[in-house]
């Protein structure tokens, strides 16, 4: 929907529950004294409730809610409810809390009647959560009146109930209705939808329907572009299979018209022999050339499908949020994209092809056999259903087995991916043996799962072979009997046996398709798991264009964020003006980095909103927005490549002059020139070793080059010693100039240039203001500052340094 990106002025009022003298609500608030309101406003109230209450009551409580609404008097109207799924002792017992325009009612599953609390001044409804359990608490001035528990699936509903509670209370007190909620609601979960957002991010997060078991058919999406070649391949396959069926057919006349008459004393018909042998040879040549063409075309196509699959998966992976990467292990993701797609590719090019050939061959053979002699054909084909059944039975068992093998295999890879990057820690703590043991354990699990699958598998193949032998035996027996009855000729029997030889060997190889199909299906499922994962930072369908010129005003409104079951931020309000530098201060774990991640939109807020120049972050195109953000992290990451490439990472088309200018401004130019290959030196993994300060200056140059409006420094100078920090500071000052800057720093001294400091404590903003003001206030910041200064002084005293001589001091111990 096309909507005005500007915030509606009413929206803030709604959230804070303040009454809003609304001329558009259909009520004339001024003429309604609180006491007279109910009767007159009953109808209007019902309309309002219909618009604002959740769409349908929870199924298990629908009857009680209906009964309740029948019994309400004097126009009392239900405005909302929350189904609680935990009782006071945290057992899974359902309960309900209902809000009307004048009362709050609650009932547990065993309760005889409703408990109720009239809405009076001073009543407060609040929620909090801990370790996945939410509590909704009702207070008055003096005490806690009631407490309800719910799992966090009800958290959004609880939030809405609290909001509605505030609105109802305000309406009762002032006598006028707050402005109606204007934003659209998600039809499934009633979450507020933002302008430009068609789908609810909450619902998208948990798609409850599992991927279909016919996962392999979903590969059609990737095969579709090659359907022409696929059709050609299929026709070739048809023709080549038909060609391979000619030779056994020719054995019939060879036997009946040449060999048997000869045995009976007739001379050999040389002409006929030449004709038949020529036919055999021609059939072989045709089958060979057609088979070659078919295999080549289909292998070509399947390789392309595999490549597309890999690229698409990687492309999709890049759009997923940090949340996804946080929850996945690198090794596992690498396996999925690397070997799984390869396995699918091999399956398509080799096994599926063979299988299709086999099926065709069986169908054609059956047709030929029936045309020669229906009775003998019937006997020949009799074991077929049995074998099919066997394949079906084993298939299920094998599939889960193979899926398990895949998971275990990913686990083995994960152990490697865990330890190899951390090898320094492993060696430093002399834990090599432990890591080997961990690997062995993962490997042992791999073995155990494989053993289980092999148990079924090893029995399966010989069984199919046995079936084949028995089938042959039956055909011999039945055939001999038929020959003896003169029902068929020896030639027919020999043709049958020749066909069956091929037929049953194909069955044997066909049974192999079971395992490879299941493996490929399991692989496909794991790839589609990635592909089906909807980013928790969804790209909006109609992005609002970035305001031009882009100034970089950031306003954070009532933002809450939960990571898993931990509430990291709650009710954060912050305005950052264009060009301002803000220092975020607080203990570690106070939510500084999370706030920054939210502003970068690496995560989406759980509650509230962040607006950039007045536009909600979620309605902007992610890439467009991030292009305006410069990020300097504590541990600068350099990709494998030249220094110039690394500096130009955010702007690959930057000219050499631009790169050098950025490096100069970042105070990196000189040290780069000192490297043997200058800007062409290789860095990153396997590259030139650079010091922390040097890497940091390269990452500053990288941020400078894209000339961002918003700059984020996340502990940019924390991992370097003081001396290097001073150098970096110089570089940073060039970077900060004229940009909206948010800096996080442990060392408060590094924030002295900040216009304003924001002190966070356990997810809330506790103080805000310039350094001097905060010191004068003697609050949380003062304590932090004091602690740090004291610590510094103590360290200096302990080291026996004389503060005055810092300019020519010896190597500081911290540099190690």
């Amino acid at each position, binding site marked *: 929907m096309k909507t005005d990106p500007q915030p509606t002025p009413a929206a803030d009022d709604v959230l804070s529950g303040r009454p809003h003298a609304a001329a558009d609500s259909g009520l004339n608030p001024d003429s309604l004294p609180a006491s007279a309101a109910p009767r007159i406003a009953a109808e209007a109230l019902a309309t309002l409730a219909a618009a604002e209450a959740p769409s349908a009551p929870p199924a298990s409580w629908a009857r009680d809610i209906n009964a309740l609404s029948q019994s309400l008097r004097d126009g009392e109207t239900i405005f909302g409810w929350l189904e609680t*799924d935990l009782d006071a002792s*945290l057992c*899974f017992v359902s309960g309900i809390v209902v809000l009307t325009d004048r009362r709050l009612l609650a009932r547990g599953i065993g309760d005889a009647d409703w408990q109720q609390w009239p809405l009076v001044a001073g009543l407060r409804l609040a929620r909090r959560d801990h*370790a996945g359990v939410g509590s909704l608490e009702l207070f008055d001035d003096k*005490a806690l009146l009631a407490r309800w528990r719910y799992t966090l699936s009800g958290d959004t509903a609880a939030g809405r109930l609290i909001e509605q509670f505030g609105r109802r209370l305000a309406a009762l007190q002032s006598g006028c209705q707050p402005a109606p909620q204007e934003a659209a609601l998600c039809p499934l979960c009633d979450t507020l939808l933002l302008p430009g957002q068609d789908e609810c991010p909450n619902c998208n997060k948990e798609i*409850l329907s*599992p991927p279909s078991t016919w996962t392999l058919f979903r590969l059609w999406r990737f095969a579709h572009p090659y359907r022409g070649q696929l059709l050609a391949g299929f026709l070739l396959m048809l023709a080549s299979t038909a060609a391979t069926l000619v030779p056994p057919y020719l054995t019939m006349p060879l036997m009946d018209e040449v060999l048997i008459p000869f045995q009976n004393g007739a001379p050999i018909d040389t002409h006929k022999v030449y004709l038949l042998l020529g036919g055999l040879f021609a059939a072989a040549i045709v089958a060979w050339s057609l088979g070659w063409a078919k295999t080549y075309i289909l292998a070509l196509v399947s390789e392309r499908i595999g490549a597309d699959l890999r690229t698409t998966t990687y492309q999709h992976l890049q759009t997923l949020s940090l949340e996804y990467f946080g929850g996945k292990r690198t090794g596992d993701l690498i396996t999925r994209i690397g070997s799984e797609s390869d396995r699918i590719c091999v399956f398509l090019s080799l096994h599926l092809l063979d299988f299709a050939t086999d099926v065709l061959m069986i169908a054609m053979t059956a047709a030929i056999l029936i045309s020669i002699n229906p009775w003998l054909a019937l006997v020949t084909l009799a074991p077929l259903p049995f074998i099919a059944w066997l394949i079906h039975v084993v298939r299920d068992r094998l599939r889960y087995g193979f899926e398990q093998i895949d998971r275990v295999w990913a686990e083995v890879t994960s152990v490697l991916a865990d330890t190899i990057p951390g090898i320094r820690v492993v060696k430093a703590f002399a834990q090599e043996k432990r890591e080997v043991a961990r690997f062995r354990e993962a490997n042992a699990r791999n073995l155990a799962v494989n053993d289980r699958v092999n148990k079924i598998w090893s029995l399966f193949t010989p069984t199919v072979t046995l079936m084949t032998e028995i089938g042959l035996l039956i055909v011999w027996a039945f055939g001999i009997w038929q020959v003896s009855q003169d029902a068929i000729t020896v030639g027919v029997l020999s043709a049958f046996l020749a066909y069956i030889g091929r037929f049953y060997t194909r069955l044997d190889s066909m049974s192999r398709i079971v395992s490879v199909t299941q493996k490929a299906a399991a692989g496909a499922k794991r790839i589609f798991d990635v592909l089906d994962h909807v980013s928790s930072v969804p790209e909006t369908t109609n992005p609002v264009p970035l305001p031009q010129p882009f100034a970089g005003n950031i306003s954070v409104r009532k933002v809450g964020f939960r990571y*898993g079951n*931990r509430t990291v931020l709650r009710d954060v309000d912050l305005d950052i003006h264009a060009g301002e530098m803000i220092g975020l201060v607080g203990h570690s774990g106070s939510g500084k980095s999370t706030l920054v991640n939210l502003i970068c939109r690496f995560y989406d807020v759980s509650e509230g909103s962040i607006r950039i120049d007045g536009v909600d972050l979620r309605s902007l195109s992610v890439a467009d927005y991030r292009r305006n953000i410069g990020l300097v992290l504590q541990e600068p990451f350099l990709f494998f490549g030249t220094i110039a490439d690394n500096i130009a990472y955010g702007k690959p088309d930057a000219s050499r002059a631009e790169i050098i200018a950025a490096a100069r401004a970042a105070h990196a130019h000189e040290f780069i020139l000192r490297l043997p290959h200058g800007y062409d030196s290789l860095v990153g993994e396997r590259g030139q070793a650079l010091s922390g300060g040097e890497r940091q200056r390269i990452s500053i140059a990288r941020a400078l080059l894209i000339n961002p409006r918003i700059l984020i420094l996340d502990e940019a100078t924390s991992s370097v010693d003081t001396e290097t920090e001073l150098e970096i500071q110089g570089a940073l000052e060039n970077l900060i100039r004229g940009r909206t800057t948010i800096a996080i720093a442990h060392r408060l001294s590094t924030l002295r240039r900040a216009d304003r400091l924001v002190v966070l404590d356990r997810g809330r903003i506790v103080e805000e203001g310039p350094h001097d003001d905060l010191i004068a206030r003697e609050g949380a910041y003062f304590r932090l500052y004091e602690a740090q200064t004291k610590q510094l002084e103590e360290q200096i005293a302990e080291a026996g340094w004389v503060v005055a001589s810092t300019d020519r001091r010896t190597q500081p111990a911290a540099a190690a």
Partner: protein
Amino acid sequence: MSDNIPATSTVATAASTAAGAAFALRRDSFGLLVYAGADGVEHTGVVPVRAFPISAPADGVALINAEGHELLWIEQLAALPVELCALINEELANRELIPEIRSVRSVSSFATPSVWRIATDRGETEIVLRSEDDIRRLASPALLIADAHGLHFLIRDRYALDAHSRKLLDRFL
């Protein structure tokens, strides 16, 4: 794991083993715990927290004040006077929820996301398993399963489950 942790600060140990307990706890009308230490200063909104809620729930409980600072370290709850112990246990029971899965009744599919119908020590419920990665292997044979809403469910011994549950569970491991 918890066995080889070096002895914590002697002050805390002394406080918890002292016969009369050098602190007082009570619950105020808002349902919050109020702690008064040896210095007589009252802290409202004190929260008890287990250090090893899964591996050693019985030992190591800390009292944390509203600012998140540790006020008291209790080596063993059982060593406290009965009424204090009861108060702390009540508050712990109020806050923590790691239901133990007794059996898995049914699962909606063997591919994730999957909705499981389970019976726990706290009643029957439904959970959504987002992906197999949400099943965490603790020290064998225990498993910890995180549902889509961040609640954690414990399986103490997966081999002790009934055959049906084990079979269902096996498909996800």
